[in-house]
């Protein structure tokens, strides 16, 4: 008898595989543009203190048009708002708020949605029926109606926005995970693990979840983009992060009454939020394109 077991190829280090995965994105122009936009705002957020020409909440020189240079103070590239704060600096600092709370809220929603989706898809039966019904009830609310009711009831603060986003997004994530698990649970490696006598949660988390990561990463990118819009909308409706720290939606809300006379105050935050959401959407599209290719 010869040894029939072919030598198992050595597993590449995790870091190397991750790097290769990121480099795959190079093949998608759209994805690269998206990654560039996101990276741009991430760098803005990290180095806000170094890049921003003025402190974000300082009142310096009211109602300056974009490009105004005031001797001995400096140039307001994007102008100033009605109480004299530099819009460019506020936009740069505002990216911190958005890029902190949107990914955090999305992450929390995934932490709730994934275990529920895994349990429903893997165990089926009663667990599935009950969880699916709860998800359907929450999903039957028009999203913004749900946010407004939750925020108006528990109050507007950063923590409450994260809670509201988690509550409203987890059912959607639950549905996606459940669908993926329903497909993956019939794979041979799951049967192998069951035969080995592994515990259900070990199978769900170690065997099934890593194999569902592709669609989930794409969904996460889209979802972060959508959460950014949500936080913006809440700010715009006056239910967002409390002032005075800059928040893009809030900046638009504060100045929109003057938009007819001084459009620069509202237009630039709009461009900022749209470009960041566009970045995440293009990134998601690129990732999907690359993942479908192989």
């Amino acid at each position: 008898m010869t040894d029939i077991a072919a030598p198992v190829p050595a597993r590449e280090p995790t870091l190397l595989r991750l790097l290769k995965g990121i480099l795959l994105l190079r093949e998608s122009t759209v994805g690269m543009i998206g990654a560039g936009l996101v990276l741009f705002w991430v760098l803005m957020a990290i180095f806000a203190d170094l890049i921003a020409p003025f402190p974000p909440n300082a009142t310096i020189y009211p109602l300056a048009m974009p490009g105004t240079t005031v001797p001995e103070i400096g140039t307001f590239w994007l102008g100033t708002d009605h109480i004299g704060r530099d819009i460019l600096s506020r936009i740069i600092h505002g990216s911190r708020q958005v890029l902190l709370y949107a990914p955090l809220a999305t992450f929390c929603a995934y932490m709730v949605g994934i275990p529920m989706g895994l349990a429903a898809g893997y165990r089926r039966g009663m667990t599935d029926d009950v969880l699916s019904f709860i998800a359907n009830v929450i999903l039957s609310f028009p999203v913004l109606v749900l946010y407004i009711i939750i925020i108006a009831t528990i109050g507007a603060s950063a923590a409450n926005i994260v809670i509201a986003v988690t509550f409203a997004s987890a059912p959607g994530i639950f549905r996606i995970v459940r669908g993926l698990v329903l497909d993956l649970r019939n794979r041979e490696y799951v049967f192998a693990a069951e035969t080995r006598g592994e515990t259900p949660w070990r199978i769900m988390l170690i065997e099934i979840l890593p194999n569902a990561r592709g669609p989930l990463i794409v969904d996460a990118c889209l979802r972060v983009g959508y959460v950014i819009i949500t936080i913006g909308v809440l700010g715009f409706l006056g239910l967002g992060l409390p002032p005075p720290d800059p928040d893009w939606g809030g900046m638009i809300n504060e100045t929109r009454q003057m938009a007819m006379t001084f459009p620069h105050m509202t237009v630039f935050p709009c461009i900022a939020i749209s470009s960041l959401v566009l970045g995440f959407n293009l990134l998601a599209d690129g990732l999907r394109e690359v993942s479908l290719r192989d």
Partner: protein
Amino acid sequence: MSIFIVRRLGTMALTMIVVSLLLFLLLEINVEGVAIKVLGPYTSEEQRNIWLEQHGYFRPVYIRYFEWLGHFITGNFGESVRFKTAVSDVLWPRLGNTGILGLATMMVVVPLSLALGVLAGMREGSRLDRVISVTSIITTSVPEFASAVLLSAVFVFYLDLLPGTSSMSDGFSLVQLVLPVMVLVLYDFGYVTRMTRASMAEVMMTHYIRTAILKGLPYKTVIMRHALRNALIAPFTVIMLQINWLLSGVIVVEFFFAYKGFGALLLEASLNQDIFLIEACAMIAVFVAVTTQTLADLGYTYLNPRIRFA
């Protein structure tokens, strides 16, 4: 099929009941809170207790819930604190206004996105496909409040073509409807387009389309007779579900343009803690959403001959 319909309607009713219970518990479980919201924060404890006693708030929760539900089903939504009249007097006209806005939007979104989606999906990977796909990603990335600002900056500020508000204070005006509809269309058409494109592209890969092309049928006939009928089944569901998203968009747009609609009413009610108005608005929003979801399911099974339930 009839069993399927009955079961689907049953689920719908159950969902509505659970939603109503959740809303009731969220807003009315705290009796003291109800009194403060209705009578205002500067009332004495005695006044509140008298009001609560008069309106039967000291009875057990479940009795109050069923009474509330009974009133609700018969169309008695209670009295609005902010508007000082019956909720239904404020609600129905507002709902009608939003209906006009929604209908106008759908009348643009549906033909536009179906046409673009079919054109893009017909030849996957072509230049036209790429232009349409990227355009639809860009437009769905611009939040409604941002496109409202940008479009008003262009059409109201620079070109001075359209009015910046749509309060319709001097009666119905078509010109005032243009900007709100434009904003909603811009945000909503991208998603339907992408879904139509995906469905069309999938149909174009099938064997029967290949057969039709190979046997020499004109391309136009292949598309019109063979592809469209199958490709437009999935977008039907997407369009129905889009109504749920439209309800969210409507809130932002109505707030921005001061349009006297349902969305603005819901927001006003929430910001002013007008609880009976919040309850009525939320229940109606959910009812519309659940009904369209049910219709989407039923319509899908009716349209798709491959799905038949015993």
